[in-house]
């Protein structure tokens, strides 16, 4: 199930090349496809040279923030006698995003190889792979891959006879979106509630167990072996839009679309090509109303903004949103925007870790006000109330969960105000029964 679609000619499959090929899952199958050559190559390089190669490539974090990966690695202290850690963020929970799951299901060794290279580069002997608890299948596949790679000497006490120790440990989450936030993840690994930490100190200074730590997303790490084998310059050249966004990007497309799925495109590919050519466009007789391009935490784009948007970090920002984790939620003209914005607010209210007042109260009250509107009890002053709440939820908390709740509310009111008005003025039947 979930078998990937055949690659579209406009895609550029690098990471996804072997999706759907069950033989690529085994160690031998991966080696036959060129796997673990990059790790062998790296063992003959200095860690600094590895970091430089990644810097050259322009690779940026694929989890959502887009921070330059090479730079992140270079912030780790040099061998200082303390244990260093790598944490692989496989807590994929951002609504609309389902790319890391496919990487783990089809190419677990691609990820392990990337982890091992990153661990080598930052001087870590241990890598914790934090996989969300609901991902039962990826958990099983990744554990099998680790067992196999350990038995073959690709990871473990003596990586390919180099004398280097790089151990892979899976840490299973237990249901908490917030643990995808990197410092919440560190707490969760330590056996604590997943509350984000105040920064600084940054993880490179004091991360998991107080030690220097680098946290990278699954897709980021999976790109690393390809960059090592083909060179940073090659990766840097994969840019249709602008030189600040390089490489390929897995875009998860879902919602009202003919062919949902993961599409790997070169950075800078027009969103229109993805929606109408690769994904087969809208359902028959339907038109595009809105797109949330970067997972649910980014501002909603109107159909007009999606029209000439380029899919890279800067291209989506130019259209008032963010590429984020590139989980694209496509909504057609049947969508009740107020109801869906309420549903998103409910998500954030449920997932708030509750340590910051603005987030705990703000997300909960946003839900209640939107419910009033949907039950036909909305008032004009609710617009300002929602916007004031959102303002208090933006840039004022330890992490960005509450900002993420505000993003769809503020952009929704800006771009689809008439749909809120229809409920408030009684022109539209209440979507829910009053309490």
């Amino acid at each position, binding site marked *: 199930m979930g078998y990937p679609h055949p690659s579209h000619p406009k895609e550029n499959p690098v990471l996804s090349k072997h999706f759907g090929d069950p033989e690529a899952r085994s160690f031998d199958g991966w080696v036959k496809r060129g796997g673990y050559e990059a790790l062998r190559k790296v063992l003959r390089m200095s860690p600094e040279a590895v970091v430089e190669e990644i810097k050259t490539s322009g690779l940026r974090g694929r989890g959502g923030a887009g921070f330059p990966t090479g730079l992140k690695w270079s912030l780790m202290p040099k061998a200082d006698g303390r244990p260093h850690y790598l944490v692989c963020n496989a807590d994929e929970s951002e*609504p609309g995003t*389902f790319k890391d799951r496919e990487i783990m299901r089809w190419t677990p060794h691609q990820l392990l190889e990337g982890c091992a290279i990153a661990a080598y580069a930052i001087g870590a002997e241990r890598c914790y792979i934090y996989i969300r608890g*609901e991902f039962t299948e990826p958990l099983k596949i990744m554990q099998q891959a680790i067992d196999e790679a350990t038995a073959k000497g690709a990871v473990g006490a003596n990586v390919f006879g180099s004398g280097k120790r790089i151990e892979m440990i899976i840490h299973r989450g*237990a249901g908490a979106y917030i643990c995808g936030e990197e410092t919440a993840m560190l707490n969760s690994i*330590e*056996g604590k509630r997943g509350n984000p930490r105040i920064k600084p100190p940054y993880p490179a200074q004091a991360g998991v167990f107080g030690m220097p730590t680098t946290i990278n997303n699954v897709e980021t790490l999976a790109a690393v072996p390809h960059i090592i084998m083909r060179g940073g310059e090659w990766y840097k050249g994969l840019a249709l839009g602008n030189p600040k966004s390089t490489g390929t990007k897995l875009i998860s497309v879902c919602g009202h679309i003919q062919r949902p799925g993961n599409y790997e495109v070169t950075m800078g590919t027009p969103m229109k090509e993805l929606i109408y050519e690769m994904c087969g466009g809208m359902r028959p007789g339907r038109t595009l109303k809105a797109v949330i391009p970067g997972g649910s935490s980014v501002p909603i784009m109107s159909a007009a903004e999606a029209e000439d948007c380029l899919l890279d970090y800067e291209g989506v920002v130019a259209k008032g949103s963010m590429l984020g984790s590139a989980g694209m939620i496509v*909504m057609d003209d049947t*969508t009740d925007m107020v109801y869906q914005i309420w549903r998103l607010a409910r*998500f954030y209210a449920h997932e708030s870790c509750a340590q910051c007042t603005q987030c705990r109260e703000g997300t909960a009250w946003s839900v209640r006000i939107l419910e009033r509107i949907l039950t036909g009890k909305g008032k004009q002053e609710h617009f300002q109330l929602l916007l004031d709440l959102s303002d208090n939820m933006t840039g004022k908390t330890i992490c960005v969960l509450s900002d993420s709740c505000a993003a769809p509310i503020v952009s929704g009111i800006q771009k689809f105000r008439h749909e809120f008005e229809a409920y408030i003025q009684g022109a539209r039947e209440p979507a829910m029964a009053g309490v």
Partner: protein
Amino acid sequence: MSLTAGQGGSGAGSSGTPRGFAEHGSAHGGHGTETAPYERLFRGERLAQLEQLFTLYPTKQACLLPALWMIQEARGWISEPAIGEVAEVLGLTPAYVKGVVTFYTMYHTHPVGRHFIQVCTTTPCNICGAEDVVRALLEQTGCRELGATSPDGRFTVIEVECLGACGFATPILVDDDFIENVTPEKIAGILQRYE
């Protein structure tokens, strides 16, 4: 309130009961007098497994989530005495462990049906008909309402936030089976597989 495990040998003497542990169990268990004696999980092979986990982390506390998973896998849910046991083996307080247990949504703090069904209803699935899937599940399992267990004890159905398979709306988790592209029409066939 009854505990899942209750093999006869559990009371093989009080030597296995940590100090203060029974107190905790009855203080929070509510129905102290009816509660069957709690059988420790971390003995013999399972204790060895846990000790193996200790080698993977620099602190014992880091084994808290894995230890709670072990309890839930063996017992179906995490009872107050189980919280006490985990606290004791990891050197934490029961209150701390409970704080962690209740933070994470996947740990059950009460017994659930033989098969636990989680349905994603977050926005991407919501616009693809997830609420219809929920309605059909509640009706066909006999659970009637979210969080309730069917009268035959077979199913419990809950709504969950994003399962991370938005392109395969609507995904559901039945126990550990991740099932994609579920529609109301497919539910009867799926439920048949779970007795």
